[in-house]
């Protein structure tokens, strides 16, 4: 035995757990904030790897009726559904099915990632893809 591990949790273990927790909350603040869930025009951005080239589809969700898109990327086929307020992956032939399990996303900043198919469905705050503005006057 090289070193004998302590087998009872102590105050220092709690500290480690605390640090991880603070990091989680900190990350959540950093990654999940700045999203307006009201007002802004939502846009769905679908990035994929079709035939080895990166392809991007952008679609304004505002005023959109239900749209179904079938995309083939990295050898897998995903059925993506976009509505006025939500986006989700209806079906996929990828092995992990994580993208399908992620369910519906509806807020700017949220995303669905399908690793095997290398597809990302992301909701962004509209604004035509420019650097984005916080308010519009006019």
């Amino acid at each position: 035995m090289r070193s004998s591990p302590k087998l009872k949790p102590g105050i220092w273990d709690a500290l480690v757990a605390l640090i991880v927790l603070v990091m989680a909350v900190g990350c959540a603040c950093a990654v999940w904030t700045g999203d307006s869930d009201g007002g802004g025009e939502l846009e769905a951005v679908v990035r994929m790897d079709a035939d080895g080239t990166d392809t991007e589809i952008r679609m304004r969700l505002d005023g959109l009726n239900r749209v179904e898109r079938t995309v083939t990327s990295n050898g897998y086929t995903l059925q993506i559904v976009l509505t006025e307020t939500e986006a989700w992956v209806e079906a996929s032939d990828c092995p992990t099915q994580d993208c399908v399990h992620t369910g519906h996303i509806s807020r700017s900043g949220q995303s669905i990632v399908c690793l095997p198919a290398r597809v990302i469905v992301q909701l962004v705050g509209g604004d035509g893809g420019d650097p984005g503005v916080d308010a519009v006057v006019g």
Partner: protein
Amino acid sequence: MKRLIALLTAGVMIALLAGCRKQEASAQIFAMDTVMGVTAYGGSAEKAVKAAEEEILRLEDMLSRTDPKSQVSRLNGSDGAAVAVDEEIVSLIREAGTYSQATGGAFDITIAPVVAAWGFTTDTYQVPEQADVDALLAAVGMEHVTLAESQVTLERGTEIDLGGIAKGYASDKLEAIFEEHQVEHGMVELGGNILLIGSKPDGTAWRLGVQDPAKPNEAAYAAIVQLEDAFAVTSGSYQRYFEQDGKTYHHIIDPATGRPADSGLTSVTVVTDRGSGSGTMCDALSTALFVMGEEQALEFWRGSDYAFELILVTEDGRVVVTKGLEEALMETKESGYTYEIVS
């Protein structure tokens, strides 16, 4: 183990308190013919937003031209008699009068009957006969309005519409409310009138897009400016207009002619620092300077005692920005406009 759990709980509390964000509240209010957005961070943000909502509705009740029970409607229906109104309205009309005077009548709240003749008040658009317009113009002008402490007299035929400054005035009132509740960061959007309190919560400046008049229904900007602690108001011919016999008629009526101002501009944005100007001022000036046109507007800017900056969008595809906004301006690529800084 108990200690561990206690520590963890304490950790969660600390993380939530310190790590995350300040109190945040926002609301959307349908009032004054538009959707208004109010967002506040820090201080008593929730109370501030609630108070802001109540204030907006109070002002709408008081200032509405279309609600027959409002004080403004009672004034307009007075048929030449003196009407007792709140002192607040008297002082607002008085303030409107000073802007009218300062702009040589380019801004005038008594233009209301002419605007109504064009149908902009009731959405029944029509091009009126010039003779009718001329007849109405006879009753236009602040000289037809007599103010007392809490009493207003409009001459027969004269009507007022405070719509041209109501939103600006509302933004001034909301500024006071936000200050009272110690809001640190906030944004108020009152249909074309913007009030920015502080910076964004993350410490960076707010990015304000100036609507591209050529694409009124798209998220397209003629310019983007980075602002903190500021008022901004845009008047544009694209905001309300109708077409008849292939001609376009917009809603900003020139009090001198009684016809839509034909000034070569498509929009005027007036920006001022919270410390040195007010929302009411921006609201009144944006209308007046649109009526004046580019040259006169810039002349007014150079010679005026009011502290403000301008973003003018012209019919021939230029964006003219005054010197004070040079640093804040971010030209938007692909907007198709050419940019000019003037001093």
